[in-house]
């Protein structure tokens, strides 16, 4: 059979010129908050990162191979067999009461004393972040955050059309004097910050922790300025040395809204996180959550609750710590060996190190070269609201094995050398790519 050209093909005469199309009939209907959303070539480049040939130092996926899958399978079967009609049913908007009590046990390790009524279970702590922002932020409001800050939080803040004021950090975390200065400046400008968003332990992306000395100082400054503290603490139990530092929430019940998660200490697939909030705030969070999702997944909550009550979860966390410590050592050792012209933070826990490139290099511009060399990272600009951070990149050591980490850093060294030569050749840091902040999805391993 030979297919016949259509009526509009050249061999069969011309069509009447059509009206133009933008391929989207709803173009005039989108909310203003979507206007900044762009398809980024950086995001597209990450599509390559999950191929096995590529060493991805980009993603934040926990390494789950050590989980006792046989036991978890038995638990899941047991849950469905014995509590199936509850697990598969709608549940409480605030979350399963038993799990909320168990969450108190988890938080007690970091010195937090609370009541089960203070806890709101959410679909990952990412949803808690969304709820907090929804409850507190109107378009144009200011949120204060570390410089740099967690990319997923910035995405939420942007979606609610907040503005972000970044406050510098150093090796001991948020700098109190800089926080004071920022809050004072905002006040003078007639703009009050709605809350301080902070990741005090093993910061994403910076890898640093807020020192024990600074925690009360930061709380005092925020209290004086009437600013709520949102303490996001997914990594607190994953410290490599010594006992966890007391959480900020352990020092202030009323001024701190605490976010926790099982994603890093157990498994992210369950999507279970939580918020601990002062009474009045908590009521609003529950209402907001019910309007968003009706209730968190009962199946996930009961699975986690059963895991917590029947398994030695603390031993699992200790196993994770040892594994991540080994990977951190591989990362830091490889950086020292292969990238002596860069500087980096040495985290005492968590998943990330924050690497500063030699002068003039732009991590975003360099990414295509890295992908060609089969290594991926997240450019620093992703972690700022305002386009800063081009001279930094975030390297994750959570998912690749120590051997792969060393190989990845070795590849990165050739990439950095190539880019440095190029920049020197043309006498420019380059600014060809736009400053859109990209959102790498978390599964870029």
């Amino acid at each position: 059979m030979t297919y016949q050209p259509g009526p509009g093909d050249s061999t069969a005469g011309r069509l009447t010129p059509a009206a133009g199309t933008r391929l989207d009939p709803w173009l005039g209907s989108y909310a203003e908050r979507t206007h900044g959303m762009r398809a980024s070539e950086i995001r597209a480049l990450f599509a390559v990162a999950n191929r096995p040939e590529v060493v991805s130092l980009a993603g934040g996926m926990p390494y789950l191979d050590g989980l006792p899958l046989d036991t978890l399978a038995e638990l899941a079967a047991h849950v469905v067999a014995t509590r199936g009609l509850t697990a598969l049913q709608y549940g409480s908007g605030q979350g399963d009461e038993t799990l909320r009590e168990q969450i108190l046990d988890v938080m007690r390790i970091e010195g937090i004393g609370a009541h089960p009524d203070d806890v709101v279970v959410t679909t990952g702590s990412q949803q808690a972040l969304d709820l907090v922002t929804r409850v507190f932020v109107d378009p144009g409001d200011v949120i204060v955050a570390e410089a740099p800050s967690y990319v997923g939080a910035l995405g939420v803040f942007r979606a609610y059309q907040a503005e972000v004021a970044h406050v510098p950090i150093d090796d001991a975390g948020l700098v109190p004097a800089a926080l004071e200065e920022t809050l004072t400046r905002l006040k003078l400008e007639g703009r009050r910050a709605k809350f301080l968003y902070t990741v005090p332990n093993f910061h994403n992306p910076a890898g640093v922790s807020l020192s024990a000395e600074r925690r009360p100082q930061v709380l005092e400054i925020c209290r004086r300025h009437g600013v709520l503290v949102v303490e996001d603490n997914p990594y607190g139990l994953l410290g490599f040395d010594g006992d966890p530092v007391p959480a900020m929430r352990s020092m202030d019940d009323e001024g701190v809204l605490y976010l926790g998660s099982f994603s890093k200490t157990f498994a992210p697939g369950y999507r279970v996180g939580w918020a601990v909030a002062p009474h009045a705030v908590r009521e609003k969070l529950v209402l907001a959550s019910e309007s968003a999702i009706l209730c968190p997944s009962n199946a996930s909550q009961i699975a986690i609750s059963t895991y917590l009550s029947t398994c030695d979860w603390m031993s699992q966390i200790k196993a994770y710590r040892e594994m991540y410590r080994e990977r951190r050592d591989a990362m830091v050792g490889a950086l020292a060996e292969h990238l002596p012209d860069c500087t980096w933070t040495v985290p005492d826990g968590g998943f990330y190190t924050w690497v500063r490139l030699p002068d003039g290099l732009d991590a975003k511009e360099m990414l295509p070269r890295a992908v060609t060399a089969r290594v991926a990272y997240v450019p620093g600009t992703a972690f700022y609201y305002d386009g800063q951070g081009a001279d930094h990149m975030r390297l994750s050591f959570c998912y690749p094995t120590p051997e792969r980490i060393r190989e990845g850093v070795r590849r990165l060294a050739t990439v950095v050398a190539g880019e440095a030569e190029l920049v020197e050749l043309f006498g420019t840091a380059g600014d060809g790519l736009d400053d859109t902040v990209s959102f790498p999805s978390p599964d870029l391993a």
Partner: protein
Amino acid sequence: MNADPAMPRIVILAGGLSHERDVSLRSGRRVAEALRGTGAEVTVLDVDADLLPALRDLHPDLVWPLLHGATGEDGSVRDALSLAGVRVLGTGPRAGRVAWSKPIAKTVVARAGLATPDYVTLPQTLFRELGAHRILDALVARLGLPLVVKPSRGGSALGVTVVTDAGQLPAAMVECFSYGDTALLERGVVGTEVAVSVLDTGSGPFVLPAVEIVTEGPYDYDARYNPGRVEYFAPARLSDEVAAAVADTAIRAHEALGLARLSRTDLIVDASGTPWFLEVNVAPGMTETSLLPQAAAAAGHDLGALYRALVDAELVGP
């Protein structure tokens, strides 16, 4: 070979390890879906260590590579497929290699009498040897402004900058060389941007209506894949005479380069109505926002039937 010609077994290759992996995956899914609607049995495979064993197990009647960038378009995957003894839709490896290199393709079409903007091709090493700023000054003097800087290989506008001020040139070079080690610098032609798809369903190449691209800002990655910033006109708003010249240019480029089954030629039509050849794609994008599917729809084709016709022609063809 599959016993039932109404249900050919087709493998679509999508993904690969190129900068355009994401676009390729989307193209692959779209074509697979359209072909399944015609009764074909379609499997989408990535290009990885599992590919050759999978082809051995599946025994497809035909492989359609929808790979964008790098080994997908430079002929090497096709060479590997021919080693595996499978029938492949589209341009063969040698012609693919020529078309994939923008400067070589330009040379070939220029010899065939087509207009293509004046250009130079420069590897990064040469800038080191001769001094970057001296070369850049000479380039601006020779080609003038605006000037288009692009990697000599690759698609989806990755690494491409339209330079309107000489001061932007160093940054454009840095961006370009992040994607590849050779840059094509081309005189920027001001005019109407059009893309013309050429198909061959068994009775010789024919063109689909030209698609005109009107962009707010550059026709970059975002403009291509995030609907809104680009207005497309299919068919393009050209006079009959210019439309015929544009169609003729695309057919001649397709033939001069020895391309087979399908291609898409990107052109700019200047104020005098002359079509200028920019580049050709042997694996044009097939996503929701891509140009070939838009042109096919404008011509009244059902995409499934059209893709199936390409498949059937390849199955009976030489």
